[in-house]
């Protein structure tokens, strides 16, 4: 598929702000629930080893957009994608009919809005992705679990109770467990759907700190309803409204000198 060269990106600063290298990008991505169009030709680039934030009022389609990346919508009947999501470096359109959603999900990882640890032990939660991938070697799994828990800044807190139920941890710990679960399989792209919305400020701060640390190794795409959070942690920001991309640009620029009136109204709190 030909990559869109202009038009879709409405950055006033022009091509200078174009992120690169890219880990992924969406090209005129549209999405339907039944006959209802909820994403309208959205094109966003995702810079490698950067944090890209999606902001916008609730119902603007940002979560729907995120869930397109690992084909979560395939699980429900009556949904339809149009356009493309291209994953680099192999330039593969993961929405192609020939692409198996499971294959996509094995390359990507996702953290959900509400912590959803499985009712299994902490250890088994993190090991789950590895087991699904057919890894049986106990030593490999042990090592990966520890690594992932360390990356998620949870190791020190749970190393003595790896066999405790994942659901017995506190909210913030549960969410970090879910992040560890996502990281254990070395995903190329980490999708986060409002990961801190169910957490208290302290737990939120620790997760934000964690993301800063993680972005050195993994590309992150995060949906947040909290503009301050987007401004604090992301490198790039996309502002969506009513299923459309209004503006995309470097976070700093977008928050200081937005090009679009709608963006300015939103970030100054005049609506949304």
């Amino acid at each position: 598929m030909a990559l869109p060269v202009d038009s879709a990106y409405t950055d006033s600063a022009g091509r200078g702000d174009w992120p690169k290298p890219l880990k992924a990008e969406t090209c005129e991505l549209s999405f339907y629930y039944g006959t209802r169009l909820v994403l309208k030709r959205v094109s966003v680039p995702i810079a490698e080893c950067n944090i890209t934030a999606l902001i916008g009022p609730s119902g603007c389609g940002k979560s729907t957009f995120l869930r397109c990346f690992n084909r979560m919508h395939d699980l429900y009947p009556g949904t339809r994608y149009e356009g493309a999501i291209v994953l680099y470096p192999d330039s593969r359109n993961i929405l192609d009919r020939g692409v198996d959603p499971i294959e996509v999900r094995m390359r990507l990882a996702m953290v959900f809005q509400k912590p959803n640890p499985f009712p299994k032990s902490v250890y088994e939660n993190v090991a789950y992705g590895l087991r699904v991938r057919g890894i049986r070697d106990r030593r490999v799994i042990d090592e990966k679990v520890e690594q992932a828990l360390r990356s998620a800044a949870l190791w020190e807190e749970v190393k003595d109770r790896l066999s405790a139920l994942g659901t017995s941890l506190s909210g913030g710990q549960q969410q970090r467990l879910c992040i560890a679960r996502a990281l254990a399989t070395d995903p190329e792209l980490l999708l986060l759907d409002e990961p801190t919305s169910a957490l208290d400020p302290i737990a939120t701060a620790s997760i934000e700190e964690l993301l800063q640390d993680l972005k050195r190794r993994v590309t992150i795409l995060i949906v947040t309803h909290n503009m301050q959070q987007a401004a604090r942690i992301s490198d790039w920001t996309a502002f969506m409204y009513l299923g459309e991309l209004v503006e995309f640009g470097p976070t700093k620029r977008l928050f200081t000198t937005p090009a679009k009136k709608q963006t300015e109204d939103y970030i100054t709190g005049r609506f949304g």
Partner: protein
Amino acid sequence: MIKRRKFFEAWFKALGLSALALAVGTLVLLFGALLIDGIGRLDWQFLTSFPSRHASQAGILPAVVGSTLVMLVTACVGIPIGVAAAIYLEEYARRTWLTELIEVTVTNLAGVPSIIFGLLALGLFVYMLGLGSSILTAGLTLALLILPVVIVTTREAIRAIPVQIREAAFALGATRWQTVADHVLPYSASGILTGIILALSRAIGETAPIVTVGALTFIAFLPPSPMTDQPPYLSFEWLMSPFTVMPIQMFAWVSRPGEDFAANAAAAGLLLVGMTLAMNGLAIYVRYRMRKRVSW
């Protein structure tokens, strides 16, 4: 790697389908067997004759009449009590140890084997209350048996009415009973009806408790008619009459050696299955229509 995992998945899907096919296939097989063995016997003579020592002359008339009358008693007793209990539990009862106790006994009764109800009836109705092996005894027994089903399904139907509806009624000054009678019951009527049909369909096929209360297996007369030609034109003598019902008649025929009687049993079974399936089908249809219509 993915291929192998997908292979397992396809394999499991086949397994799941065959498991379901086994269940559904049994139903077909069961019906087929009854049909092949019994359809030849299912004629007017069979429906209008009394039992006989000769299989080819035997009929099911007393059993059909008996089933109808027993069901009449069951419905008249079981439905009002069950629906009233459900309304009480959903709309009136506060959480006390008493309601706890009622709830526990209802769930428990739903799981008590039907033959235990038969023993209860034998001890209580037949001997202690002296009702004997009568239509009244059988009807009361089955009424107790279906009580939990009626209560549970009625409660579910009532619970599906959103609380906003009740609040709206209360806000207009309705009393609790007005709210129940004007809103809750009418809106949940088809759900309650579904439960009643299912409960009666279960009762009509019950055999074990009726055996224990002492239904006859060979009966050559009909209960006295509920209508008389003298005032007051109604008679309740039939309530105390000995009786038999369809499942008992079928049981009696199954237990007799010889293919002729097996054919009679199959014919009775066909009638019985036909009736329960029709009632269940009706209930499923009512529920299906209700689900389509209701918008909350």
